[in-house]
């Protein structure tokens, strides 16, 4: 009986906390449907008349489809090349047990300690000199910043894949690339999902690096465009909130479909 009561109490506390956790989203969405006057008169209540006008205007101002496409393109391409190249590198490092491999692995792991701010100034200056401050340059930078953790995670998994598999394939006449691509890479799939999730979350949300690398109108990602948009409409909450709501929708959709993998990926990445 006491156990039951305790569970009920815990459930109740959890429920209250969940309401509290979601309330910022609720207030954002509800106020995004209000007219300007309504937000000032009654911030906490429901809209006196629901309007879609804010969303229509924010959608146009954000150039939403193009901005979304830029974000999808940059995150997508970056994550795919991080997955493929990091898996290849981790494979080479794990199957070659020389001093060079240990040294390189150490360098990759040590690079995780370096905060972005301590390399950003020379990085931007040097890429600027070679005219590489564009999308391609940005994706290459994401490979540089993302590969360390990814190689570390793949390396851990590869240690558990027996070398006899490689040898069997070799006897059957497969070369290194075929062994990697047809035998090893498919076995790494669960780790590839984890690596993909961990990288897509920070790349999708990253603001500082793109703000330094891609300046040109029309090539902004969501955080970048939103920053300018918010600066422009800071006293006009009805538009700002509609823009914020729009920009969150893609993430919520992704979370809805893949929450299990996402939470598992986060746990795997953090605990290792």
């Amino acid at each position, binding site marked *: 009986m006491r156990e039951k009561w*305790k*569970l009920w109490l*815990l*459930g109740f506390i*959890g429920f209250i906390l969940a309401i509290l*956790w*979601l309330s910022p989203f609720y*207030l*954002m969405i509800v*106020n995004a449907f209000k007219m300007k006057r309504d937000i000032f008169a*009654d*911030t*906490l209540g429901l809209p006196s008349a629901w309007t879609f006008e804010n969303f229509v205007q924010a959608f146009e101002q954000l150039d939403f489809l193009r901005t979304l496409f830029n974000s999808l393109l940059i995150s997508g391409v970056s994550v795919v*090349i991080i997955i493929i*190249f990091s898996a*290849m*590198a981790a494979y*080479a*490092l794990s199957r070659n047990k*020389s001093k*060079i491999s240990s040294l*390189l692995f150490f360098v*990759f792991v040590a690079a*995780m*300690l*370096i*905060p972005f*701010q*301590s*390399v*950003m*100034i*020379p990085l931007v200056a*040097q890429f600027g000199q070679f005219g590489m401050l564009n999308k391609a340059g940005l994706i*290459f*930078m994401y*490979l*540089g*910043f993302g590969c360390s953790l990814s190689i570390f995670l793949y390396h851990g998994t590869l240690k558990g894949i027996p070398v006899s598999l490689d040898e069997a394939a070799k006897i059957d006449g497969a*070369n*290194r690339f075929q062994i990697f691509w047809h035998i090893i890479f498919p076995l790494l799939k669960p780790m590839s999902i984890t690596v993909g999730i961990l990288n897509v*979350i920070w790349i999708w*949300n*990253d*603001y*500082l690096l793109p703000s330094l690398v891609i300046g040109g109108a029309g090539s902004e990602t969501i*955080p970048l465009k*939103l*920053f300018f948009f918010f600066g422009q409409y800071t006293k006009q*909450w009805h538009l700002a909130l509609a823009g*914020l709501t729009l*920009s*969150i929708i893609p*993430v*919520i959709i992704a*979370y809805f479909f893949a929450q299990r993998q996402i*939470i598992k990926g*986060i*746990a795997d990445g953090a*605990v290792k």
Partner: protein
Amino acid sequence: MRNRDAAYWLFLTPVLAALILVVIVPLIYGFYYSFTNWNGLGTPDFIGLKNYLDLFTDKGFLDTFWFTIKFSVAAIVVINIIGLSLALIVTSKIKSSNILRTVFFMPNLIGGLILGFIWQFIFIKVFGAIGDLTGIEAFNGWLSTTDTGFWGLIILTSWQMAGYIMIIYIAYLQAVPEDLIEAAKIDGANTFQRFRHITFPLVAPAFTVSLFLTLSHSFKIYDQNLSLTNGAPYNSTEMVAMNIVKSAFTENDMAYAQAKAVIFFVIVAVVSLTQVYINKKREVEL
């Protein structure tokens, strides 16, 4: 695979090229620039330790630094208490545990920039409305003073990061064997005693992981700082990362900013290495 195999180097080339060009070369150049008067253009002149010496008398930078330390300490405490509490609720046998987990983790997926803007609205408009409604003065004028800016940042980061830390605690809590708890129950241990003597020691490694994750995360925070307070009022809520970005790209004082960045790097590296050291030590003990 042998060292002289072409395949070995082919497999490594893409990431090596990226790491060298994106991280290692800029890091080395960064050290060099920090000893010069480089302003982003032209050839730099070597000026020795001047930038570093100037840092120690730069009140703006020292204030920023002190604010960041205070913020990190408060954030570590608050985030870990909330994160562990959420994990304990979610791992109990309540029916709603899956939904709660999903809800608590959600803010973590959204970028700090967007979350900061949302909370700017909450603190300014919603808190203001609550203040008007209840007549409680404390709800008015948020983000307009250093203190409310500080706690605003703490609330924002806790809301965002507690779910992440929760996931880490959950991973360790679920590894606590059920029969140990049952055995203690039969021996007459109450809920608190069971937590204190069984769960807590087994979850101890999670504390190291979470404490250091929150420390390095809050020390390096930028997006939330930019979108919630942007340093206002009068740069009093500006943190180190933002200070570096500003002096590099707003004031164009590249070499001086780079000296700050080197100091920043050293601190972050020392913190991370301490964690590695503690983890290794524990692994040996086990």
